[in-house]
């Protein structure tokens, strides 16, 4: 049994891992774990990851969770070109710094935006109070400003002239709200230009393929949602309110 990646491309973390593996010609079995069908709660998947989250990697007997850890593992095991995780001490530290910061500064708010703009209204039939949405929008705007000022600055990519894991993770996360019709790149030419550079460095074909499922999320018929899964989602939503 070769390398297995447990993924649903609706998740930004999964897209980062998928794109990286495909871009670097890393052979793997795509194990689809359908989040919309609640398959991450299945007995089979819980054995892979008791925390029921995606992505997971299985390499023989070795099982690994957390997309950042998986990306580093793939990078090292398959000797990806060094620009992905530069050996230069300072450049590497910048990637680490972004990878640490993004958990709460980018990933979480971008995901929350998708929930607020699309999934909550779709699943529960209720709109999120305007005040909460405004608050979230402000947080997203602020953090994108920080991203530009601190990480991107006047460079082509976060570490300089070449794409790294940091750009990949940043972009897939910023794509998340587009499924809810919210395009974070509209307000900043700098951000939009960086976004195009990253997409081109990845390859537009691979990038679009990876984002196809996300782009179609608005078409999802959520009446097929398992009631137990719906209940779990509603519980989760309490945290956002």
């Amino acid at each position, binding site marked *: 049994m070769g390398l297995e990646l447990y993924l649903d491309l609706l998740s930004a973390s999964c897209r980062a891992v998928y794109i990286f593996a495909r871009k670097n010609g890393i052979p793997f079995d795509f194990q689809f774990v359908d989040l919309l069908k609640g398959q991450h709660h299945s007995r089979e998947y819980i054995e892979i990851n008791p925390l029921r989250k995606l992505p997971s990697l299985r390499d023989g007997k*070795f099982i*690994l969770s957390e997309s950042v850890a998986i990306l580093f593992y793939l990078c*090292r095991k398959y000797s990806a070109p060094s620009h992905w995780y530069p050996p230069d*001490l300072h450049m590497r*530290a*910048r990637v*680490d710094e972004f*990878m*640490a910061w993004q*958990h709460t500064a980018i990933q979480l708010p971008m995901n929350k935006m998708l929930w607020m703009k699309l999934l909550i209204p779709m699943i529960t039939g209720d709109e999120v109070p305007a005040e909460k949405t405004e608050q979230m929008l402000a947080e997203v705007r602020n953090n994108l400003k920080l991203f530009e000022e601190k990480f991107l600055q006047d460079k082509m990519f976060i570490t300089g002239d070449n794409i790294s894991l940091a750009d990949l993770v940043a972009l897939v996360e910023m794509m998340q709200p587009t499924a809810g019709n919210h395009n974070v790149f509209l307000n900043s030419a700098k951000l939009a230009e960086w976004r195009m550079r990253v997409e081109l460095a990845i390859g537009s074909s691979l990038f679009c393929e990876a984002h196809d499922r996300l782009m179609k999320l608005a078409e999802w018929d959520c009446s097929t949602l398992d009631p137990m899964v719906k209940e779990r989602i509603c519980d989760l939503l309490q945290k956002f309110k």
Partner: protein
Amino acid sequence: MGLELYLDLLSQPCRAIYIFAKKNSIPFELRTVDLRKGQHLSDAFAQVNPLQKVPVLKDGDFILTESVAILLYLARKYEVPDHWYPRDLQASARVDEYLAWQHTALRRNCLRALWHKVMLPVFLAEPVSPEMLAATLAELDMALQVLEGKFLQDKAFLTGPHISLADLVAITELMHPVGAGCQVFKGRPKLAAWRQRVEAAVGEVLFQEAHEVILKAKDSQPADPTLKQKMLPKVLAMIQ
């Protein structure tokens, strides 16, 4: 100017960096940024870190934030013993896995436990409802279950037979609720035994020294109204 570390030992990530640097005899200038005096909000400190947070590392012109990044930078630059961040592919993956998980899990819960139980009421004179506190402590409990059940299991340390960055980050996080008076090790013999091992590996003297401040958190002087006004919204954003 050599290596400078901007720290307040009240903060969990600062403690991990302090211990790591001291344990590995990494020479540095300690620049204390007193959070309870609002020093992180000063214009002077904004020059160092516009995000107004600690810890910060300054190595010549190179400025670095985020404790995980700082720990990795120090580990690489000063070529510390391998066990802290092993060369072995799977062993380092385990450390990476923990360090990634903890940001939105244990870190968040330990932070909320301290602020809801002690710092909001004592330092910022903001009452916290018993329901809110109970919910926070319940979430902390769940995170501790994951820490024991998924990460520690029957190993000596979180990622294997030797102490690594994962253990250092975890233990300094857990001392936050300990400082708030939570009995996190009670009824958890495995975790308690792991704590002893980590303290012994770090060195009792250094461990005590790094935790002196947090263990006195409940004696914090209440912030004056001006400082409270400045700090409260930022604190609430930090612990959400």
